[in-house]
């Protein structure tokens, strides 16, 4: 069964095209990173999947049902973002009690342990928490609810470095303990890359690529070598970025369009190196003329 299936999904807010022709399928229990720049449409996509918004065109299905205003979809999915709010009259402890009442797979003890670890006092109220604490609490709330589809939109915003590392590990451990589909939207791919299985890269409201992390990492490579030798090579492939420093040029190219053996490269004195996933995402979503240096020229 497909967990999420989007077909030619688009969403307009007035004149703004937030999403255009999103087609993607997510199946199985995976941790998937939804990556994109600010305003790429990540949050809009996630809120549509969570059933908060209605697509303007196309359709979106979650667990083979239209999630919009659907109570079964709501019972099996949870969206955690910085807008998550709770009544002013509830202490954190009571919030956990409420969560336990609603979500059948709720892990109350785990919540207590995680919050204790994060040094969050359970007797305070949600809006009294600091930004980082609130993000931590929200993430814990999302994790212990153990919904089949857990959507985390920028879950680590405001958390400090140490707690971020801890909670990426917490997400992983919770996932291993209770496999489910976890969507994590973030622009900090670097720090969560290792726990992801797939990456859904979104830019300007469309899906740029949807691949496993390893596949993504093989999409682009960096070549560097003497400029004259590079020139002929680069004409055959798509170049994403190029920099020439003192006769040595470095270029980011599409690996799938590079038909040349490693020996050939070596004899030409060109070295090949891999890029990190976050670098690849950056290059894939680089728009023409979006080079910051160009502005200062």
């Amino acid at each position, binding site marked *: 069964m497909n967990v999420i299936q989007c077909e030619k999904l688009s969403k307009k807010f007035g004149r703004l095209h937030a999403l255009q022709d999103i087609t993607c399928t997510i199946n199985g229990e*995976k941790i998937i990173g939804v990556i994109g720049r600010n305003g790429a449409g990540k949050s809009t996509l996630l809120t549509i999947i969570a059933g908060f918004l209605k697509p303007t065109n196309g359709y979106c299905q979650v667990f083979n049902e239209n999630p919009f205003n659907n109570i079964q979809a709501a019972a099996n999915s949870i969206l955690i973002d910085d807008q998550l709010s709770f009544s002013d009259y509830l202490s954190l402890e009571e919030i956990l009690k409420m969560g336990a009442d609603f979500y059948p797979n709720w892990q109350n003890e785990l919540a207590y342990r995680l919050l204790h670890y994060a040094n969050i006092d359970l007797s305070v109220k949600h809006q009294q928490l600091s930004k980082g604490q609130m993000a931590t609490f929200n993430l814990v709330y999302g994790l212990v609810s153990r919904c089949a589809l857990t959507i985390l939109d920028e879950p680590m915003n405001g958390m400090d470095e140490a707690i971020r590392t801890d909670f990426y590990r917490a997400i*992983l451990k919770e*996932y291993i303990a209770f496999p489910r589909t976890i969507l994590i939207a973030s622009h900090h791919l670097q720090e969560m890359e290792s726990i992801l*299985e797939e990456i859904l890269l979104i830019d300007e409201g469309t899906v740029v690529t949807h691949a496993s*992390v*390893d596949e993504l990492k*093989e999409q682009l490579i960096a070549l560097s070598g003497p400029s004259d030798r590079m020139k002929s090579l680069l004409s055959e492939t798509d170049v994403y970025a190029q920099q020439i420093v003192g006769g040595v040029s470095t270029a980011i190219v599409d690996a799938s369009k590079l038909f040349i053996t490693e020996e050939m490269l*070596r004899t030409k004195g060109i070295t090949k190196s891999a890029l990190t996933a976050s670098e690849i995402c950056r290059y894939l979503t680089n728009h023409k003329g979006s080079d910051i240096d160009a502005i200062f020229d």
Partner: protein
Amino acid sequence: MHIHLDSTTPIYIQIAEWLQHEIIANRLQADEKVYSQYQLAELFNINPATAGKGLTILLEEQLLYKKRGLGMFVATDAKDRILSKRRNEILTKMAQEIVLEAQRLLVSDEELLALIQKTQEELK
């Protein structure tokens, strides 16, 4: 060992290499049960699927074998095969790189051989 995220080598290959290393170092004996993908995931803080991919590589090379419902075990001749493979593949590749680098740095063949001999003596 630590997984290097920013290393040019993909994580699953690093996992496969680590397991091979453990076999060579006798920390994983023949016919011993190896880590499951979940154990590896927790150990290295990586996605279980990635860890599984690392195991699959070894499985495909028949360095591991699967017992249904029990998990994966180290093949009897795993250590020998790894060692011979390393000799063949890795060493050849490294030699190639050394030679290429030597050419680039205009080091003569004699000088290169002497350097290798000298390094061997030092590390003995």
